[in-house]
């Protein structure tokens, strides 16, 4: 038997909700391989109100998460992403996430980070991506990820029943 951990999400949907009866419930990411650094460089777009809910859901504090320009905010987002945006190479090594920065806008909040490896992959073949951010918010939530590795381009979609894509 598994224990369900309830998570707090304080931000009211109504305070910053999206237009329409149907929420957006989607994120999109550009993931580019940097040959020089041996890292994936990620630019991830999330709606600000959904990001707030994600981070709040992912922590135990009952305080409201404030999306702002502080280091504490960055650290909380990075901590959330470490658990929800991961690459795994065939030998089982899981990427570590290095935070780079963010841009906050109503249209989308862009989050920038790198996925680093002790043994950088030499091909996309066999690589797995686990991207399950926001899936706790809505069963309709999807994460669209576009991966570019040298000439190789892959469009992946992550949803509630498809957290992981192996290439």
């Amino acid at each position, binding site marked *: 038997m598994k224990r369900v951990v309830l998570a707090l999400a304080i931000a009211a949907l109504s305070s910053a909700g999206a237009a329409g009866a149907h929420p957006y419930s989607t994120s999109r990411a550009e993931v580019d391989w940097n040959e020089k650094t041996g890292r994936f460089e990620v630019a991830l777009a999330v709606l600000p109100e959904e990001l707030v809910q994600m981070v709040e859901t992912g922590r135990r504090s009952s305080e409201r998460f404030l999306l702002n320009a502080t280091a504490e905010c960055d650290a909380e987002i990075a901590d959330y992403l470490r658990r929800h945006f991961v690459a795994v190479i065939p030998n089982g090594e899981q990427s570590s996430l290095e935070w780079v920065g963010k*841009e906050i806008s109503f249209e989308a909040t862009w989050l920038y980070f790198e996925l680093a490896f002790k043994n950088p992959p030499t091909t996309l073949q066999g690589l797995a991506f686990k991207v399950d951010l926001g899936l706790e918010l809505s*069963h309709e939530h999807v994460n669209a990820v576009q991966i570019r590795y040298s000439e190789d381009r892959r469009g992946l979609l992550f949803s509630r029943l498809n957290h992981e894509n192996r290439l």
Partner: protein
Amino acid sequence: MAKVLVSRILLALLLAAPPAAAEAQAWGSSSENGRAPTAASRPSVSHDKFRQLEEILPTPNGFRTASGAPGPSYWQQRADYQMDIELDDVTQTLKGKARIAYRNNSPDSLTYLWLQLDQNLFNPESTATLTEEAPEFEKMPYRTLARLLYVQKFRGGITVSRVADGAGKTLHHTVVKTMMRVDLEKPLPPGQSFTFEVEWSYPIHDAIAAPARTGYEYFAKDGNYLYEIAQFFPRMAAYTDVTGWQHKQFLGRGEFTLEFGDYQVRLTVPDDHVVAATGVLQNPEQVLSEVQRRRLREAASAKAPVYVVTPEEAEANEKNKPAGKKTWIFHAENVRDFAFASSRKFVWDAWGHDSGRKQVLAMSFYPKEATVLWSKYSTHAIVHTLNVYSRYTFDYPYPVAISVNGPARGMEYPMICFNGPRNEEDGTYFGMPKEDEARRFAKYPLISVVIHEVGHNYFPMIVNSDERQWTWLDEGINSFLQFLAEQEWEENYPSRRGEAAKIVEYMSSAEQVPIMTDSDSLLQFSNNSYAKPATALNILRETVLGRELFDFAFKEFARRWKFKRPMPADLFRTLEDASGVDLDWFWHGWFYTNDHVDISLDAVRLYTLDSRDPVIEKGRLAAEKEALPPSITEERNEGMVHRVDQVPELKDFYNTYDPHAVTDKDRKDFEKLLGELQGFEKDLLKTEAKLYVIELSNRGGLVMPVLLDIEYADGSKEKLNLPAEIWRYHPDRVEKLLIRQQEIKSIEIDRQRQTADTDTGNNAWPPRPTPTRFQLFKEKMPTSPMKEAQEAEKAAKEKAEGSP
């Protein structure tokens, strides 16, 4: 500047030598490897992108013509309602009685009628409830579990207590989840009406505990309720020439398909409630104070919104207890639905607005919790929406347009809509960005949602599409117009949908279905039915047709189908019919496939003409040779004393022969050639034009115009748009010839990101690296707050340790 190696074309007498026969130097694509894709690596897009849609679209008929207009035999049913509704603020229940006059305008005799019982969505036995998938358990938000438990516990659903004909005789009826069939004693023939009555009741559900389009919100601090009531009465299902009865079950996504009619509705509520509803209030003397009536009159001609109920009055009202009940009477004409909101918490502001020859009263109703944001923006956003949407469609035909704040996040009904965004509890909405950046944006969700939901009056409330079947037909069109209205609100309004660049990731993502997919089977719902069609229409307007042609054709669609029921084919056909442009390729690619745009500029080849004049051609060859830099050996051998210089007798003819010198034979040959040529052929030999061949490949499958930005060596620029038909013979690869007098320095495809091209890395010649978004961010923002904090910490530490 790109180095240009020239290939010379020898003109044959019949001018038949094809450029491809000449040897040419090709320069690589701008893709990362600098190579054009091989035939093997190129995606297969061999099927006919320009195949006419006639094979797919319904056959035109007397109801719907091939031009996309309603045909001479077009018909639609009509349903007029007289209703008595009572809202119980103690038990949160609603009961009602409706007298429905249903007119059969179809050519068919009907033996039964179908009605929609949408409240049965909340029944534990509903298809929606039974088919809801399990949630995510790893990190389940409290409110998710609360919702699940509430849905499990709440015994929602409608109780139909009576169905009888106009004479009071009970009619047999069968409830099929969210639909009800009423059997007629005798068939209802074409052109005849049938009047019957229905009585019902249902418990109103908590729309905060389980978000929905309708329900109540309880405010624990003051103990009051706010009701947003919709889908609350048995509504006639639509009977159409396309579907017959549209009685697909209501699963929560595919919204509503309804008939037009007139409504006379008596709403009985606690006597201290303020009510907003579809239609015009018929008895203001009985339900409004004299002061409120005076303010309403003043609002009609005011220059800014006027409070009918002030925030102070609303707050005082919250402390009331009702002494009894009041009945508000509303009348609405030619609407497809009816909704209302009721609460003692409402602040109410109003503002008269001229829409064509009619005056519209724009009104907002909101609790004190939303006053700061709403009193500033809501009514202004209504008026702005009417202004912009009417310009692109038709004058707003209804007398009121209302925006209500309550538990629904955003939902539309005729003349009235429910919108969720509020200011913070402390009254701020964009203050304190240092503490919470998200607050800066709080006004935009409100402005956007009001534009969107008020905009729905046009689509689908007036242009009455079948939402149950085609979500995109109203949501996509409305999101497109929303984008136009947002951009007119303020400069650089942060619209989330509309611009082509914002759909790129979705277009190339996996697990898509075409836009032309049933509402309840859509994947990536919001991207599919809102964003993609809105973007497609914007691209059609900005890039394919141009604003003038598009706006005319779009307005024609709206005009043709105002107060009628269009289907997707009617939109496709009308936009072609009115624009005069065959758009089948566009509808096919954007609406019937999952293809995406990725046009690659693979290579550029340059040809120049051989003039055959030995003076020119040999001179050119000599100049080219002269222009070549010496090899390293040649350079180092400079000044070397050669054997033949020491022993001159070793030299022969070839030591002094200049292959670039023009000989008598060269001249005679040229004169002989000229003698054989006609005048125009002689002129052609003098042509100095450069012939550029642009190699393009279609890697995404979706054919689109090719938008070229050309820069010449002299600094001048040219924009050249090649219509999508350039792909009609070879949808996967084409070569385009450009004849120019000037030397081309560079070419770029879709510089202004108009087409949603998913890979701009292969869009330029000469190839150039395209920085990723990540790289651009790093360049402009080398530090992050975290890094700054770390550096500050390090500096403080050094200071504390006495470091210099």
